[in-house]
């Protein structure tokens, strides 16, 4: 029988490493990962089960680690964002897609977005944009906005399926495979620059179009 002050011994696998620890029963999994194991890639955002930036995989399923007790993970397999690029040199294809497709600005939501997206792609390697949006319903981004995140997941999924990277898309419904020998996103098949998605709201020189706010950096053409 446990008493209120008694620590509890737990054993679990974290990113392939066997971990043994004694924790207070009230220790949250996210705090155990960040503070006890120094795995600070997983973030604490809202701390109220809303924002999803604390998402990790518990026995293969995405969970909000702010809403799991460390003792509940005893005997489980936990994977955090750190597992995706163990040597920091070679990004996971989904991470590379987020870089390539502007899937992040401040990056705070990105660990959770990645882990939630990988939960989806494990179930469905070729999701539609609607399915991607549905899957990330529990993950908030407060700066980039969701279109580029959806672009990133769609493109990362293609690479993970072994297909060539997809080119920039003005909208999710229309995109094309790059022609052989061309970079994935800078040139159209006819050799003309592909319009940046920002063209809809801003000129290529960063002048705000009518109705667009003047603040903010011009969109970098790629």
């Amino acid at each position, binding site marked *: *029988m*446990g*008493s*209120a*002050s*008694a620590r*509890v011994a737990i054993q679990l696998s974290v990113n392939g490493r066997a971990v043994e620890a004694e924790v*207070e*029963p*009230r220790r*949250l999994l996210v*705090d155990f990962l960040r503070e006890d194991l120094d795995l600070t890639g997983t973030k604490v955002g809202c*701390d*109220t*089960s809303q924002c*999803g930036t604390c*998402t990790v995989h*518990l026995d293969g*399923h*995405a*969970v*909000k680690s*702010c*809403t*799991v*007790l460390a*003792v*509940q993970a*005893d*005997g489980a397999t936990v994977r955090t964002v750190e597992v995706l690029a163990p040597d920091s040199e070679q990004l996971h294809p989904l991470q590379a897609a987020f870089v390539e497709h502007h899937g992040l600005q401040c990056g705070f939501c990105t660990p959770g977005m990645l882990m*939630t997206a990988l*939960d*989806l792609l494990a179930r469905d390697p070729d999701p539609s944009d609607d399915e991607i949006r*549905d*899957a990330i*319903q*529990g*993950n908030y981004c407060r700066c980039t906005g969701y279109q580029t995140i959806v672009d990133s997941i769609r493109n990362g999924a293609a690479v993970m399926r072994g297909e060539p990277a997809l080119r920039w898309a003005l909208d999710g419904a229309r995109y094309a495979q790059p022609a052989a020998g061309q970079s994935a996103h800078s040139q159209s098949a006819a050799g003309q620059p592909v319009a940046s998605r920002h063209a809809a709201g801003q000129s290529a020189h960063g002048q705000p179009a009518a109705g667009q706010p003047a603040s903010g950096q011009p969109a970098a053409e790629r």
Partner: protein
Amino acid sequence: MIPAAFAYDRASTVDEALALLLDHGADAKLIAGGQSLLPLMKLRLARPERLIDIGRIDALRGVRTAPEGRLAIGALTTYAQLLETPSVMDLALMADALPRIADVQVRNRGTIGGAIAHADPAADMPALLLALGADVVARSAQRGERTIPIDDFFDGAFSTALAPDELLIEIRVPLPSGAYGSAYRRLEQPASGFAIAGVAAVVGQSGGAAGRDLPIDVVRVAVTGVGDKPYRATAVEDGLRGTALDSAAILSAVASIIDDVSVQADIHADRDYRAAMAGVMARRALEAARDRLFG
């Protein structure tokens, strides 16, 4: 945010859980997925002295076919598992509701037993099970097993018929005989996703094949998010039984959707708006269920 300190015990079997409940039931909370309990504990709106962790009792997980054409859903079956179970998703109101309950991460942890034992007055699952006419199976160490009809299960907000020493074992859902249609419609608070008004409807003709010229003799309508507990709208049901579920009959009947109910008000919806939306959701759910019956 950090919960207040508590003692922790994990039960590996149903019998272990029952023994722990016998010793500590009055001061303990059961934790399964923890998706409702832990947020309350972090806010210190709940401060149980002890948690009894039943999350690893595999015998309580999964869906099986039980006698008399019933589905027996283990208390620890997660929303994600329900979504992957064809016999559950064949129930159209479940297919309406399950993909829209919370989000992927919460559905991976949250359990059906936890949902109804927690008895949030705005949760979806209570209304779905009320409309289906489910039975709740509970067990205690001293009194053994009993079956609680879902109509008798919800006492009030966050309050159920479960005794402190009882463990919710499974939920038995009768599969409607004859021809039937069902639907769930919800106006949700956009940030939380919880129901401002949610209505589940099951309509049917128990005689067999559906026919527009035959009267409807099965009508079950259940409401969540509106009163201080989920409830059956029996006046609406009575108003529709024997009709052909034409739109005029539905429109007339749903005027009774809040009869004898103390309609709740909060910053998202005052009483009048919530009552009006209960009627709208009832009409939509009934029309969708009818169209599926005759579809």
